[in-house]
């Protein structure tokens, strides 16, 4: 393989990994605070749809990004109400979010554009590299040619997430709430408030991830375009051991598996696609059964917190 090809494969892997990473970061926030967020897929669908809608209305893709974040928060708020305040089953609440998002977007599509399946192409997109200077770099300049703004955003947010969760007092609170909410409550940390903020943050990140798939990749919304990426993002989060940097590594690993498969096919090598499509899931299972180090979920992950009234 020539250097150009290696760069092309890496670039492709990074593009494929970005939506996974953004969503996985959302999962890290939510689950570190003790709320399992299986609704990432649904929030992504919402983000993908509303970013396209508002780009159509305003003609500006950045406003579309803001819309994706806002509607991501709306979807996440639904999950938060059910799983934090009403103490409902988080898995079921997340599944409901997924079903609701898929159905609502299909309905809005019909309502707004009077067609089903897909929207028209957006007048504005975010598919080109915003930092042109990087393309002039020797050797790796090519890498940046098709870097969308979302790639830079995702990388920055990974470190921001790490900083917030591990280097600030509030981050410590979040992790305490996710491990032992009762103890956290005893020392005066608002468990509900902390969980709310974290779930809403997961809405921000998964919404962004959806926008990355629509206006950041193909410039329109199509039903089914999220294609299970919310679940692969969850797998990336687990594979990354509920850690932002780990999630980044895991997303890139999943991305590179796909990119290598694509490249191998183009070269005419016969790598069964089904086999490589399994990699994310197999890797996650291997991590979960403790073959490569141990992945331990936050202790109170998935458990609603019942405040003692006494």
């Amino acid at each position, binding site marked *: 393989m020539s250097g*150009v*090809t290696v760069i*092309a494969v890496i670039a*492709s892997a990074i*593009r*494929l990994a970005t*939506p996974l990473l953004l969503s996985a970061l959302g999962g890290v926030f939510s689950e570190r605070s003790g709320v399992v967020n299986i609704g990432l897929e649904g929030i992504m669908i919402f983000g993908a749809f509303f970013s396209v809608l508002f780009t159509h209305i305003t003609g500006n893709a950045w406003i579309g990004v803001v819309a994706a974040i806002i509607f991501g928060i709306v979807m996440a708020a639904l999950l938060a109400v059910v799983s934090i305040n009403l103490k409902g089953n988080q898995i079921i609440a997340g599944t409901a979010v997924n079903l609701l998002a*898929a159905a609502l977007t299909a309905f809005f*599509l019909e309502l707004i554009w009077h*067609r*089903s*399946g*897909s929207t028209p*192409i957006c007048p504005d997109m975010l*598919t*080109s590299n915003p930092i042109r200077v990087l393309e002039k770099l020797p050797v790796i300049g090519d890498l940046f040619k*098709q870097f969308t703004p979302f790639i830079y955003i995702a990388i920055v947010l990974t470190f921001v997430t790490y900083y917030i969760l591990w280097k600030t007092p509030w981050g410590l609170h979040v992790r305490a709430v996710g491990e032992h909410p009762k103890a956290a409550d005893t020392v005066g940390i608002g468990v509900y408030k902390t969980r709310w903020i974290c779930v809403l943050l997961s809405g921000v990140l998964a919404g962004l991830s959806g926008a990355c*798939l629509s206006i950041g*990749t*193909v*410039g*329109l919304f*199509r*039903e*089914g*375009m999220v*294609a299970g990426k919310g679940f692969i993002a969850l797998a990336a989060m687990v594979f990354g051991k509920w850690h932002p940097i780990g999630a980044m590594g895991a997303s890139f690993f999943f991305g590179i598996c*796909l*990119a290598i498969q*694509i*490249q191998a*096919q*183009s*070269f*005419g090598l016969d790598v069964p*696609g*089904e086999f490589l*499509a399994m990699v994310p899931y197999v890797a996650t299972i291997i991590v979960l059964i403790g073959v490569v180090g141990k992945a331990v979920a936050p202790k109170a992950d998935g458990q609603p917190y019942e405040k003692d009234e006494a």
Partner: protein
Amino acid sequence: MKKALAIVLSLLLVFGMVACGGGAEVEEGPLVVLITDTGGLGDESFNDSAWAGFQRAETELGVQIQVIESATSDDYLPNISAAVEAGAALIICNGFLMAEATQQGAEQYPDQAFALVDSADAQAPNILNLTFNEQEGSFLVGVAAAAMTESNVIGFVGGIQLPLIEKFQFGFQAGVKAANPDAQVLINYTQSFSDSALGKENALAQNKLGADVIYHASGGCGIGVIQAAGEQDFWAIGVDQDQSALDPDHVLCSMIKRVDVATFNAIKMVVDGEFEGGGYVFSLADEGIGAGDEAGNLPADVLASIEVWKEKIVNGEFEVPYDANTFANFSL
């Protein structure tokens, strides 16, 4: 109190539904129902084309039309049952993915007329199989690709690698080989019909290796292929419908598969009372398959050479390959 309220509300809801259902039953022509595969409407391609045939039948034949979109493959059979219960005179199952469900449905409802597009795998006296010689149309766009490439590298992006999609691939490869034996064809399969991002990555990878004309047969992934063509300035070739509206400057031409003609004809048979099970194959000869260039990107000489090849195929001078075997034995 709460319980009573809940009961009242649910009763209201039920009555509401009944009322709506009643309102829809206007005395008109027979009801025909389209059930899409998981690709769904709005693919600007296969399912939309089938629906176009329904819309034509609504205006020309006065039938009532309805579409049921399948979210997952588990929905196929329940959707068929729903269509039967709605009193459909004909149920058209769109796509080979629905073959198994159609077979089960046809056995469960032996008096119900079914048509299955794109597959002959389900066989029953009440199933009409509507299939196409996609390899013939793919051959023609292959000729176009071979004429337009400057790098002599051409790409093919398929959806899930199934015998049906391989018909597109081998027909296309044969067309390229016939018109330009020096050109190389890169083959990629996305293993999806909906993941547009994957379609784009596959096309970008092929373009990086020099492909400057890329033909896709990948449903919803195709929008990604066309998007990549726009960004990197190469030619994409559309499929099933004329897809030039998506990007008139980068969609060279499209392989046209007149699913609309197939669905319209099937509906017409029912309206005329001539429906019977069996098979019908659409081909270049009856215009059920073709190559289209609405945006006018093909120069006159290329159009002329497409016409020449088309003539040869229609006259039966050679058979267009449709799988690995026939392609290996293909020579002119």
